């Protein structure tokens, strides 16, 4: 306990170590929060849910905070209806009996549009309750300057989705302009560079039902260009989910891999140094073979042929790293320790091999192990990201590497979706720097030769 306190007080003299420790603490707390707030199964379900779960999100939308930049005013997504669920003012539904057999069910959506850019898409989700005769819905668009544009007439059978961008007749009526632009464009603005008209828009969904109990419900979604804190990807998924869950996954992977490799390497080096002779020679030879083994290609092959599970990859990585170059360094230090008098004393009172290795050799060297261990964590976090970028990420879990991989495959940089790359990259960089800064400071604390350098 006192050793830990002494280490911490020594660390506190390095500003970078304090910053690093703050980052690590924040990451741990945030990971705990994430795992509690979004349980594992829920996260996997959401991430794998596909478009059904994320139907009302825009595609590749930037995060909302881009609007904080001066001169940027991107539209947010507007979701209205069905009547009765949202505010009364914005969605109004009225029933009028036209004749004995026909009733008008009119839903009016009213919303303000104030952004400088056009929305991404407009969709209307219609559902109906009827016995035999299908209701008929005609849609009309009312602009702030009083124009009235007929959208389409739809027969509602079960759930129907009207995607305005796919209504060819509407596009023709708008002189070939895409509906999401034509419906919002200011007629006074330049045709080649249309600007949206700001003001209050209305969509009237006039349903004609032919039965007494029949009803039509509608839900309007005007997809914006920005979404949430992190934006969305090409499958409309909220990136925040992946960015949040990426944190515990990265921490767990980095920590386990670092513990696994450094502890196993350490034990093997201790065994070799203690027994010497044949065992030591064999360990040395295996280390040399291992140095030449192409680790990443082998990992890739395992991912391709056997399993892509993150835990399988982790085990293979640890197994391949047991006989890594670290053995040579540890062995050199062990051989030095072996000559110490206390070591001889242990042997003199008849301590067994196991006791000597685990109670005399290893504890003495833990200080040299710790810095390397901390520095190794971020490199393993990046190994996970590397595998994901090569399409070998875990198929279930959302991770930072998978987000980067999706962004790369969908040409995010080429198409200007910079947030898609920058968000996971920034998180990777911050977490990597956090561990590396603490590790470097620890190295100086534990390594007296470096203390003044």
């Amino acid at each position, binding site marked *: 306990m006192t050793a830990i306190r002494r280490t911490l007080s020594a660390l506190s003299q390095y500003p*970078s170590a304090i910053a690093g420790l703050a980052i690590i603490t924040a990451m741990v707390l945030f990971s705990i929060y994430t795992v509690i707030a979004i349980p594992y199964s829920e996260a996997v379900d959401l991430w794998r849910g596909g478009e059904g779960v994320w139907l009302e999100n825009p595609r590749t939308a930037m995060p909302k905070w881009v609007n904080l930049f001066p001169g940027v005013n991107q539209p947010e997504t507007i979701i209205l209806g069905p009547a009765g669920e949202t505010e009364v003012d914005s969605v109004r539904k009225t029933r009028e009996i036209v004749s004995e057999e026909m009733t008008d069910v009119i839903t009016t959506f009213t919303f303000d549009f104030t952004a400088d850019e056009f929305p991404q898409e407009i969709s209307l989700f219609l559902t109906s309750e009827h016995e035999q005769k299908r209701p008929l819905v005609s849609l009309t668009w009312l602009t702030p300057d009083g124009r009235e544009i007929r959208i389409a007439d739809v027969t509602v059978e079960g759930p129907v989705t009207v995607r305005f961008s796919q209504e060819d007749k509407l596009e023709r009526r708008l002189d070939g302009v895409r509906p999401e632009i034509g419906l919002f464009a200011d007629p006074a603005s330049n045709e080649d560079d249309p600007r949206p008209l700001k003001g209050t828009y209305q969509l009237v969904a006039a349903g004609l039902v032919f039965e007494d109990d029949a009803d039509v419900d509608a839900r309007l979604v005007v997809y914006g260009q920005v979404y949430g804190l992190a934006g969305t990807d090409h499958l409309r998924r909220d990136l925040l989910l992946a960015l949040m869950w990426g944190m515990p996954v990265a921490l767990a992977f980095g920590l386990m891999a670092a513990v696994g490799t450094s502890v196993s390497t350490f034990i093997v080096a201790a065994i070799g140094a203690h027994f010497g002779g044949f065992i030591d020679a064999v360990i040395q030879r295996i280390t*040399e*073979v291992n*140095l*030449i*083994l*192409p*680790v*990443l*290609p*082998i990992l*890739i*092959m*395992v991912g*391709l*042929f*056997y399993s892509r599970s993150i835990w399988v990859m982790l085990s293979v990585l640890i197994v391949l790293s047991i006989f890594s*170059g670290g053995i040579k360094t540890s062995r050199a230090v062990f051989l030095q320790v072996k000559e110490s008098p206390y070591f001889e004393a242990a042997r003199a009172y008849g301590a067994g091999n196991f006791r000597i290795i685990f109670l005399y050799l290893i504890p003495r060297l833990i200080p040299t192990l710790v810095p390397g261990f901390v*520095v190794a964590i*971020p*490199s393993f976090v*990046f190994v996970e*990201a*590397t595998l994901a*970028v*090569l*399409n070998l990420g875990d198929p279930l879990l959302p991770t930072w590497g998978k987000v*980067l991989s999706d962004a*790369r495959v969908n040409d995010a*940089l*080429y198409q*200007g979706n*910079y947030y898609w*790359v*920058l968000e996971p*990259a920034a998180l*990777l*960089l911050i977490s*990597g*720097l956090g*561990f*590396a*800064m603490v*590790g*470097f400071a620890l190295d100086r604390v534990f390594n007296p*030769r*470096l203390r003044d*350098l």
Partner: protein
Amino acid sequence: MTDAALPLQPGAESAERPQTQSTLARVAQYTGLRMVALVFTVLIGVYLTILIANMGGYVDEIRVGYIRESVAIAAALDPELKDMSAEERLAHVDKLVALQEKRMGLNQPFLLRSLRFLWGAMILDLGWADNMSSDSGSRQVRNIILERLPATILLFSTSFFLSFFVNLFSALYLSRNYGSLIDRVIVALAPTSAAPSWFYGLFLILLFAALLGWFPFGGLVSAPPPDTLIGYALSVLNHMVLPVTATFVSSIFLGIYGSRTFFLIFSNEDYVDMARAKGLPDRVIERRYILRPTMPTIVTGLALQLIGLWFGSIVLETIFNWPGLGRLFYLAANIFETSVIVGSTVLYAYLLGFTVFFLDFAYALLDPRVKVGGNPGGQA
């Protein structure tokens, strides 16, 4: 390099000649032994690769299934076999399949087959690729792989030598100006090497290709390639800037930090103080008293860095669309082209083997302990 020490022992000059020859012989013996050991290590590495790639015979099963299917289709389309009854045709197909399996050596026991495959892999005789071909149109795995090698070597040797020399000279400079502002900046930047090169590559593409448009997004040359040789070389250079910078940035700060610290530790040794007290100029002290004993370790560190570079190449080349070995591996992995995957892995093992061999050779030249063959009498 040895002549620096000669004037100190003028009397030993006559005895020097046989001594040099035996030194040469010792260096040759040392490197020879290391070479044999390395060939064995490469063999073991490649054999392990084959075992993993073949996943206990699973790949063979896929191949048998493929043979059976193609033979059955060929038999169904063959007009000469039209008159045969179903049973006859089945027997005929079985016979053809057996012949094919024998031709590919699939009927032999796994151990024998894997050894044959090992030999084939070592000389890169891996047969034909099913779904890939080289740019020159060959389907032979060896041609496909070797065609990509120059691009990879060009990219990574450039990166390696750039970081090697920048590393060495900046580290020397910093160890001389220890504690200065630039020294502290480099030390503070050392943790940035936690991120691999492809990661910085993404940022570089974003900044210099997407936003500023100064350099291309990726590739080897512009399309269509320039006609003149100079134009071609310039285009390749232009395409190389970003990947080389990415590799350089990802390794340089940690490398400089490590070398500088190492130089500093050694410049505190007593014999360096002694040399200073004698009034030797700084350059001579650096060359003779600091660089000489630290060189083997520095070279080891850099060679390990080069090994890291080879592996980093898979992702870096994929990110930059660089038509090298790494990108080939990625493409082959995506379409399960086993022979190309194994072939690339073998080539990686060879590259690593060569790296380690040159490291050993440099060691033999640089490390006096190898030269004197561990004979304590040699250290006068």
